């Protein structure tokens, strides 16, 4: 078996028994990236020097056995919206093309102290604005299963990296499906964490009240290992949760069945427009989960149809404000011709792509005097109702299962000219962000050579339950072990 085919758990065994070194492992991945990524295009930056330095440090730690964790010496990549000290962090935007943060995001800091190895930074839709990576300011990442198709977005680079064996795990970021959707399109396991479970400090924001960092890996177990390393309260993030972090991987080892668990199937998620094969795969998966002992009931989330307009209105507003700091004054691109106003206008004109400009425009409009109540305030009120829907559902259910996306990965170029059509592909994922609850995307089928994913949604801080369902499902099925042709 080749090194890149191993899970984190298996790799850790080889590292801790010193059958391989972290440096060998890292060089193996760097070589694969060099060979395969020119086709997949999942990395914006490969941080070879940093990786080798960190690998050597990890090897010292493995030698001494001091401070050893399941992630010591394990390489990974991070979405390019997560700040890495001294390593370019661009959000796939020309406006941050040469930006090198002088500090690490808390999640990166935690992985550094676990002695994990940063291979590089993954491509994404510019600032997370998109569902395909076609809105990257640099290039479009391809779906490793079929290079003519998108990997999903906005964490498309991270999903493609894991799917193509270019990193054993990646840190993604989910604002409105940005972890789950590409995980589904690329056939990997991805977790959208409870809002505040993983610190946002150092995560370059798209929508501050939706953004969550979450792991993407090849199994629910590996996701659990990463989650327990990066989760926890951070005094630098006022919105982070204070509850202590469970040992997710330990509890997975003990789990045997799903008896006593009630699974809800929201009827609004199985409607017209849902691809037949996607529906069939998800329904089969639900049957298998029922077979593991869970009770399955139908539930209703009556405000589902309003999730997309609510999501986008709030997104436009917050994004327009979050993107104001890119003004050519302190960092990033700066067009220095003419006066200060020219610096602002020309920098932002040259630095932002069409989708970023569109959303900044719509957000500026939605917040401006006279329109605030009709758009932003109205959206926040409907958001309250969408949250209530979930609260009600969780009074009777422990988790909900739905498809992640209505279809498998669409073709590159298929939706890029119609922004509204692209927004609608987020129909099953955005409500979760409005409620701030966690959801796991698990591979559950393949149609025409492209993966299908199911979404397991739970109440706040129910990550353990979601991982348990995913883990047991994966112990019965092999969809998560299937590999794309380029593997």
């Amino acid at each position, binding site marked *: 078996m080749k090194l890149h085919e191993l899970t984190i758990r298996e790799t850790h065994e080889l590292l801790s028994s010193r059958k391989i070194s972290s440096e060998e492992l890292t060089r193996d991945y760097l070589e694969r990236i060099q060979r395969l990524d020119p086709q997949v295009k999942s990395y914006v930056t490969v941080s070879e020097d940093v990786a080798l330095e960190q690998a050597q440090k990890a090897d010292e730690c493995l030698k001494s056995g001091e401070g050893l964790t399941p992630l010591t010496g394990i390489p990974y990549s991070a979405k390019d919206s997560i700040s890495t000290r001294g390593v370019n962090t661009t959000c796939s935007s020309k406006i941050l093309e040469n930006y090198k943060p002088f500090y690490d995001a808390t999640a990166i800091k935690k992985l550094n102290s676990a002695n994990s190895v940063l291979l590089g930074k993954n491509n994404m839709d510019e600032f997370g604005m998109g569902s395909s990576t076609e809105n990257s300011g640099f290039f479009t990442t391809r779906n490793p299963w079929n290079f003519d198709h998108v990997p999903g977005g906005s964490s498309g680079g991270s999903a493609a990296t894991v799917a193509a064996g270019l990193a054993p795990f990646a840190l993604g970021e989910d604002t409105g499906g940005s972890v789950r959707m590409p995980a589904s399109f690329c056939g990997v396991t991805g977790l959208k964490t409870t*809002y505040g479970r993983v610190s946002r400090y150092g995560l370059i924001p798209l929508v501050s009240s939706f953004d969550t960092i979450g792991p993407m890996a090849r199994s629910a177990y590996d996701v659990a290992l990463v989650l327990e390393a990066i989760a926890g309260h951070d005094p630098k993030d006022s919105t982070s949760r204070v509850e202590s972090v469970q040992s997710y991987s330990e509890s997975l080892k003990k789990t045997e069945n799903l008896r006593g668990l009630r699974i809800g199937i929201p009827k609004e998620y199985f409607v017209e427009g849902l691809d037949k094969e996607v529906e069939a795969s998800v329904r089969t998966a639900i049957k298998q989960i029922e077979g593991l002992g869970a009770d399955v009931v139908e539930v209703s989330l009556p405000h589902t149809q309003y999730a997309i*307009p609510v999501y986008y209105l709030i997104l436009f507003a917050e994004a327009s404000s979050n993107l104001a700091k890119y003004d050519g004054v302190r960092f990033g691109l700066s067009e220095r011709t003419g006066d200060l106003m020219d610096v602002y206008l020309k920098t932002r004109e040259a630095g932002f792509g069409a989708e970023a400009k569109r959303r900044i425009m719509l957000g500026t409009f939605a917040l401006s005097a006279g329109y605030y109540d009709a758009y932003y305030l109205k959206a926040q009120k409907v958001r309250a109702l969408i949250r209530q829907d979930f609260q009600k559902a969780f009074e009777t259910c422990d988790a909900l299962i739905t498809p992640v996306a209505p279809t498998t990965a669409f073709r590159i170029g298929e939706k890029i000219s119609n922004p509204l059509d692209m927004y609608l592909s987020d129909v099953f994922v955005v409500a979760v962000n409005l409620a701030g609850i966690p959801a796991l995307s698990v591979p559950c089928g393949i149609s025409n050579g492209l993966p299908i994913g199911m979404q397991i949604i739970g109440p706040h801080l129910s990550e353990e339950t979601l991982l348990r369902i995913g883990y047991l499902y994966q112990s019965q099925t092999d969809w998560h072990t299937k590999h794309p042709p380029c593997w």
Partner: protein
Amino acid sequence: MSSEIRVDEKLVQEIASLARLDLTEDETRVFVSQFKDILDYVSILNEVDTENVSPAYLSSSSKNAPREDVIEVSVPTEEFLANAPESKDDYVLIPRVHIEQ
């Protein structure tokens, strides 16, 4: 919502100026039509009765946990200025801010 709002090039240009975006004529035209589509689409929210609903601004139920007033070490000036497009004598430099007198 959108029915009362006249989306035209003038509105788009006003918004662009507030957002410090220098739109070309083509971009302005495209935005006018996309604005209309998107505002039309979100007007579906008018169907929802929110008379007695309070807005849900936050995603977590946490309340503010302030920090103690303790001084922490600052970042070296040169690390901050390394990203600055232009700097001089430890200041960030920009074209002169226009001041009317």
